[in-house]
């Protein structure tokens, strides 16, 4: 049986790991390789590196650190941020990343999902979605790496996840913006609504702050993985504590 995954997310800006609250007020939390090694030693199942400035600046992620990460850790990792073309993705995968994640570029050019899935296989293609509840529905947001450029799109989140999956996304990371950095729990209602729409792996993001939050995401919203940042960066919880707790709740985890 597949284990449920715990995935620390490292937001990268200018070669350092940073973390903001609700996508704002970024503070430096550490060195990329140091944190990557720490989390893989602690039992992380996968890491996501997200260059939060890349997409909104219109520049590509700096690739030098990707190879160093690939050489340093022995768990899979995903790189996100400003990947706009098949060639961008190829370069990142060639440097040793296991997956690439696209967000804003997929919204601008949905066919990019198909192109990448065809070229690299759907297992490499993750679609990240920033979503916020509004008047009883969920809507996709774009350019969330930069507060000044962040904007709502006309896309309903539930339509977009279905479209992304049918175009060849291998996995969806749903970042519930209302919850991000608040550590008040994942948006279980939103995750459940998305879960009902897709069969491909769904990763919850935004809001993890306590042991029960992880259990809720797996048991109530049936996600495949839970992504978290500040709760691990600030050592509120360790990955080991989260996994021990989940195991006691009957969730299959790798310990």
């Amino acid at each position: 049986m597949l284990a449920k995954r715990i995935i620390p997310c490292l937001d990268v800006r200018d070669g350092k790991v940073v973390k903001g609250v609700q996508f704002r007020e970024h503070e430096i939390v550490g060195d990329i390789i140091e944190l990557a090694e720490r989390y893989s030693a602690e039992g992380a199942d996968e890491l996501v590196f997200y260059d939060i400035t890349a997409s909104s600046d219109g520049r590509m992620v700096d690739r030098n650190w990707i190879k160093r990460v690939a050489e340093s850790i022995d768990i899979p990792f995903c790189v996100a941020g400003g990947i706009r073309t098949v060639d961008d993705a190829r370069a990142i995968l060639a440097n040793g990343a296991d997956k690439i994640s696209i967000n804003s570029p997929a919204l601008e050019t949905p066919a990019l999902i198909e192109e990448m899935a065809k070229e690299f296989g759907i297992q490499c293609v993750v679609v990240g979605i920033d979503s916020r509840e509004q008047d009883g529905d969920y809507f996709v947001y774009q350019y969330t790496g930069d507060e000044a450029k962040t904007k709502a799109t006309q896309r309903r989140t539930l339509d977009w996840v279905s479209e992304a999956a049918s175009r060849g996304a291998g996995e969806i990371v749903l970042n519930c913006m209302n919850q991000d950095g608040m550590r008040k729990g994942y948006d279980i209602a939103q995750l459940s609504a998305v879960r009902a729409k897709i069969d491909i792996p769904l990763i919850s993001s935004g809001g993890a702050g306590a042991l029960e939050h992880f259990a809720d995401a797996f048991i109530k919203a049936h996600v495949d993985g839970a992504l978290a940042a500040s709760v691990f960066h600030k050592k509120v919880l360790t990955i080991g504590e989260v996994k021990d707790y989940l195991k006691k709740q009957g969730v299959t985890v790798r310990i």
Partner: protein
Amino acid sequence: MKNKTTLAIVDSGVANLTSVMAAAKRLGSEAEITSDPAKIKAASKVILPGVGAAAAAMQQLKAKNLIETIRALTQPVLGICLGMQIMFERSEESGGCDCLGVIPGKIARLPDKKGMPIPHMGWNSISIRAKEHPLFKGVEDGSFVYFVHSYAAPVSENTLASCEYSAAFTAIAGYKNFIGCQFHPERSSQVGQQILQNFLDM
């Protein structure tokens, strides 16, 4: 004192070699990525990595004149993921293609089952069948390892460890000096590292 292990990682042209090379380095192995038949023959251990489609991988090996070289190897050879699949006689992937045939059997697509998307991707546990095999020294039954694949070898008498997804399949196969590993030991944390170390110690 042990003889020094030299490891040849076969450059099949379709593999992501960075992570396999890095894993070998972490284990302190003297590894070289090569498509030179002489170097591959001379190495004390050979790893055949691979990602992508079976037919493309076989074409690359053919273009590099490596098919007969690999078939004739007598030292321990470890195929990883697609590298494992092409060790079998045939794969039904993309209309079917003949493979190296150094392990008996055929590769088939994992069956579809509700709630179990293909590819099978993530950490899954293995059931060790050949408990005395040197590859499993220090590896617990039920250990989790990292898989990414849509095709697999059915369980057979050459299965050393199996895994269960939409059907039971071979996680590790062994036949003579050829070992095939469906998962990615180089991405499977301590368990994967132990298996790689055990292979290098064989």
